[in-house]
């Protein structure tokens, strides 16, 4: 029997929710010291599988073996004791406590079983972290740390608990691209010590850089375990999606009048003297590293924040947006980056969420013309291919991709002329991603002006007719024509260190 050599083995795992199959007969095998990718679209069952490994869900059927021994993980605590640690997308640290306190959270060292032994905890925390990053001061409160450093603390916590398996759920979703390198080096160190790592990510470049093998899930079923070196990306995509994803050629562009122009916009040190314009029928991409001021710039454009200096001209007329509502009245709207925090009202239906900006137009003496609203939203929801097409269903029950479609539906119904997308496909699976792309292109084709902020270079290149690259709050350069687009060209502008102008 070679089975006993796996750090973690899942056999035939099945799980139902209210009669709906979330997982059926899923298998997963990971060797000690292996970095193993777990891939699949949103809704493929990755999260459910992770929750089962973390002990927060119990499978209906199937076995879990750790180091060859069958285990039953009845609680998150049992999973930790068994040596499985989770690093979640949203890190689970207490901001006010220091690094050492966070690492010992839930299992503190004490003196006489009563008093916290801070000295011992700090010493041990330092010992564990020394290998990973000797520069990190364990006495610093976690709130003062960068996201990458916080991740380090979480990993340290896992090592402290003697984890033999560490599952990382989208660990780079809030990291700057460059920080992935450091994380990769860290993962390799852990792997060299024999820790098995499960790496969940949508980003192929990371998966191929980090992992040896991948387990592919689709619709809650196990599709295949592949060796990544023998599996080119398009094939992996096909396994995940179960259909051919077509790469479309660049669309024909019909430019109209200048819809919006910004001159010398500044907002503290977030945005400095930024100028730009976008025309009807055009998709303007804004690229740059995390922290380059892209989100901040588009918030100024959409009236969500107020600039300290500079002016905005809409169809050639200078004006100041008093707030998002004002911008919307002028036909300018933002599809924000953080869907959960800024996009949706989770408990309300799709109809309510999509209808918000349209209500004022369907207001007759304070009375809402609900039938008109419903027919309008339902037409637009069908157009964005909302699935399921259930307008009265709370939006929180939809997948990320469909929540995003509902928000696009919101602005379609409200009749916007300029739509600003901030990271339109963050946390959205590949299939829905293509749909969002096509939707954005169709919106431009109809003569709307579109601005797309994206950290994914492939995405900016795929969508844009023209690309602005930001760096340190400034517009560092422009790639005026698709012929000039390349990842190198964008990155060169994004990291360029020009001499400060003023």
């Amino acid at each position: 029997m070679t089975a006993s050599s796996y750090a973690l083995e899942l056999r035939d795992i099945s799980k139902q929710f209210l009669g709906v199959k979330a997982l059926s007969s899923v298998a997963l095998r990971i060797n000690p010291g292996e970095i193993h990718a777990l891939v699949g679209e949103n809704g493929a069952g990755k999260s459910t599988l992770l929750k089962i490994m973390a002990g927060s869900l119990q499978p209906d059927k199937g076995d879990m073996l750790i180091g060859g021994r069958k285990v039953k993980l009845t609680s998150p605590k049992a999973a930790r004791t068994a040596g499985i640690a989770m690093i979640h997308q949203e890190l689970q640290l207490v901001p006010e406590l220091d690094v050492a306190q966070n690492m010992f959270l839930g299992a503190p060292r004490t003196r006489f079983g009563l008093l916290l032994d801070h000295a011992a905890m700090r010493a041990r925390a330092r010992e564990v972290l020394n290998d990973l990053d000797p520069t990190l001061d364990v006495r610093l409160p976690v709130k003062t740390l960068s996201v990458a450093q916080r991740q380090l603390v979480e990993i340290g916590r896992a090592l402290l608990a003697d984890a033999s398996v560490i599952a990382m759920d989208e660990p780079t979703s809030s990291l700057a691209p460059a920080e992935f390198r450091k994380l990769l080096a860290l993962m390799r160190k852990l792997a060299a010590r024999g820790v098995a790592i499960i790496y969940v990510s949508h980003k192929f470049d990371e998966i191929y850089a980090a992992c040896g093998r991948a387990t592919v899930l689709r619709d809650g079923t196990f599709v295949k375990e592949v060796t990544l070196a023998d599996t080119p990306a398009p094939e992996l995509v096909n396994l995940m999606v179960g259909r051919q994803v077509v790469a479309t050629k660049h669309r024909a562009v019909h430019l109209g009048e200048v819809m919006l122009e910004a001159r010398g916009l500044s907002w503290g040190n977030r945005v400095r003297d930024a100028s730009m314009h976008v025309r009807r029928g055009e998709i303007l991409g804004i690229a740059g590293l995390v922290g380059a001021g892209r989100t901040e710039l588009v918030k100024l454009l959409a009236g969500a924040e107020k600039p300290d200096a500079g002016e905005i001209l809409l169809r050639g007329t200078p004006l100041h947006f008093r707030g998002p509502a004002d911008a919307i009245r002028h036909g300018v709207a933002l599809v924000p980056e953080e869907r959960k925090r800024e996009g949706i009202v989770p408990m309300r239906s799709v109809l309510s969420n999509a209808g918000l900006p349209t209500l004022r137009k369907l207001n007759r003496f304070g009375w809402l013309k609900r039938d008109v609203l419903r027919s309008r939203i339902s037409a637009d929801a069908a157009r964005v291919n909302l699935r399921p097409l259930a307008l009265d269903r709370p939006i929180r029950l939809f997948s990320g991709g469909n929540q995003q479609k509902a928000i696009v539906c919101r602005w379609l119904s409200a009749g916007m002329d300029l739509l600003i997308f901030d990271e339109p496909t963050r946390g959205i699976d590949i299939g829905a991603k293509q749909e969002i792309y096509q939707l954005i292109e169709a919106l431009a084709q109809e003569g709307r002006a579109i601005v797309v902020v994206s950290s994914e270079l492939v995405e900016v290149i795929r969508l844009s007719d023209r690309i602005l690259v930001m760096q340190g709050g400034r517009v560092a350069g422009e790639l005026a024509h698709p012929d000039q687009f390349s990842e190198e060209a964008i990155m060169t502008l994004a990291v360029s260190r020009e001499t400060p102008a003023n």
Partner: protein
Amino acid sequence: MNTMTIPQTAAIASAQRANPLGLSWRDMGTLIGLVLIFAVFAVLSPAFLSSRNLVNILQQSSINACIAVGMTLVIISGGIDLSVGPVAALSAVISATLLASGAPAWAGVAAGLGIGIACGALNGVLVAYGGLQPFIVTLGTLSIFRALALIYTGGNPVFSIPTEFREWFAASPLMLPMPVIIVCVVGLLAWTLLRKTPLGEYIYAVGGNEEAARLAGVPIERTKIAAYAISGGLASLAALVVVARLGAAEPILGNLWELEAIAAAAIGGASLLGGKGGIVGTLLGAIILGAMRNGLTLLNVQAFYQLLATGVVILLAMLVDRLTRGRG
């Protein structure tokens, strides 16, 4: 969920569909709780289910129900209004003074409601533009409004309320006492506001996710001010009912009204985190609290134990709510 199967969609559709009574499942739960409480008291006390006593229960619940409806709007919008009792007291003493000095009844009523709406709007402005937490704002105005009522009257009740005014509130059209009818109308209006008007959608959106609502163009400030103003207005309406019943306005009127109203809203399914709640649930919650008090009094249970029972019912309701969550 692009891989949604047909049975799953069907399951969702059936979960969405309202039950035969047309109530949401959460309201259905509150109704079941109410029926259970009625059943228990009916068994323990034969007088409980008499039509006269049932009307009594409604009448006794009406003040709290009126306050709780306003409280529900504020809670759904993500706030809380601790100042309802003092707002009621302030509008009671001012309208009573007017009435006692011979002003026509409509003037007294208008003044009372006007004061209530103005006090509520002040709360709303402080919350919306002051950047202060609703709990703190209304904790402050709770003291201020109470102090104003006490200062205005020198701490003494205002008597000599004209009988014309008292009789209007003492009437029983449609076989129901006037306060009950007032609450029915108020409830219907508030229900319509939440379900059928843009303001209702805004109130849910602001409480459900304020930043998302702002970016979607919802007038956040106006929505909040409206919710608090309505709450203040309903507090003063409840005050007028009490003044008519007692024939006097006391500056200490409305002590702890806020807690009872919050309890009714919470039993009815309103979430103190905002974004969730409804009028039907709140009215049922108010009747549950009223029925408890009435039933325990019929059974000659000491007031101390009544308080105990009320607390237990609130916690039980919340626990059941927690355990059955996720049904929509």
